[in-house]
């Protein structure tokens, strides 16, 4: 027979009441200690910033399932309790905007798509153009315009082709200037004779074209290689 078996049996019998007694003593001691501690004074002595600096928040957050947290949160009720106006009042918008790279922001904006949604006609309709124009110094604008460059871009020949020269000659003093600078009755007679003969040419040509059942579009020519107008 094992000589320690009798002793082991006594130990097993005494262990539960001893453990309960120790537990009761520990709880009593802890209660007394906590009651004696001034937690506020204790926390005041703790440098929370130093503690937080030692905490790896990223690692902590990595272990947090944010989605699960958010799923469990009643955001509506939470936001209902938030005074947005008060928050915005405390936000320094100017400093916020100073920190925003507007160019970078605009680079990500599809301006064409944005404008396609804008009713430009309605927008312009709401603009008081008179008021806008009143604020424009036209003289200053014209002063900034390089008129020579503008004139260089104008096709004067095309402009002159749109001028009704015949009306100009008939209705202005330009006619009298031409009359004074050109010949007299003899040249008028020659012009009239030539014009009348050309009229007969045209009549004959039109008559022949009608006989041939061909459209007549005016006197043909000139020769392809005609180098310069021939002086009369």
């Amino acid at each position, binding site marked *: 027979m094992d000589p320690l078996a009798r002793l082991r049996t006594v130990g097993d019998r005494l262990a539960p009441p001893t453990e309960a007694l120790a537990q009761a003593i520990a709880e009593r001691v802890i209660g007394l200690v906590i009651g004696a501690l001034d937690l506020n004074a204790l926390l005041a002595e703790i440098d929370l910033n130093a503690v937080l600096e030692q905490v790896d928040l990223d690692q902590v957050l990595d272990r947090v399932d944010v989605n699960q947290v958010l799923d469990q949160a009643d955001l509506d009720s939470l936001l209902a309790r938030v005074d947005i106006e008060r928050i915005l009042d405390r936000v320094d918008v100017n400093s916020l905007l100073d920190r925003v790279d507007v160019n970078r922001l605009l680079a990500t904006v599809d301006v064409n798509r944005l404008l396609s949604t804008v009713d430009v006609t309605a927008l312009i309709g709401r603009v008081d153009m008179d008021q806008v124009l009143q604020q424009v110094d036209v003289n200053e604008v014209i002063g900034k315009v390089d008129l020579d460059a503008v004139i260089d871009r104008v096709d004067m020949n095309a402009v002159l082709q749109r001028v009704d*020269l*015949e009306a100009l*000659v*008939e*209705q202005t003093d*330009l*006619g*009298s*200037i*031409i*009359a004074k600078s*050109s010949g007299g*009755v003899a*040249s*008028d*007679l*020659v*012009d*009239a*004779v*030539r*014009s*009348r*003969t*050309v*009229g*007969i*040419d*045209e009549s*004959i*040509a039109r008559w*022949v074209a009608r006989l*041939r059942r061909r459209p007549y579009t*005016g*006197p*043909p*020519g*000139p*020769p*392809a*290689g*005609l*180098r310069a*107008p*021939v*002086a*009369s």
Partner: protein
Amino acid sequence: MTAHTGKVTPFEPPPAARESLQGHYAGFASRFASFALDLVVLSGIFLLVLAAINFAASVLTGNSIHFSRGNTWVVVAYAVWAFIYFAHFWGLNGKTPGGALFGVQVVTNDGDDVSGRRAIGRTLAFPLSFLILCLGFLGILLGDQRRALHDVIAGTVVIYCWDARAARLRLLSRPRYSAPHAPPESHSLPGSPGQAD
């Protein structure tokens, strides 16, 4: 028509004259009128020369020379004179006196001035257009380039050499023609063919 109404209408340039006709192929009437005037001029000069010869002969010899159409020498002289007349003026600047008045000029197919050789060729070929019953002139009416037979042979064309638009503007600038300076009744151009209508 104006003779019936008693009103004088101003001479109105043809619509074609609204554009400069310079360089365009001349029509039948201008060419025919030009030739007719040349014929009058060269015939008049020829007759004057014959008259001068007749006068000189009568002064020198006391006998006048009677020229007639039946005289071969007269016909030959007339043909030679006509040849010289046309060849000279066409070779000079493409314009005979008649052509200068009616504003037509002979140039090559390419629009260049006619050389003396080409002018002689055109003058020699010119009678051919008559000799085939004037059919040589049909090309002026029917051809795209308004060329007669002698033009085709000589490689020439006839073009208008005057600026019709400038002439029209000159005409419109006349005080008695333009509207703001004259009453409607006096719009006609004195001396213009329009008055004779």
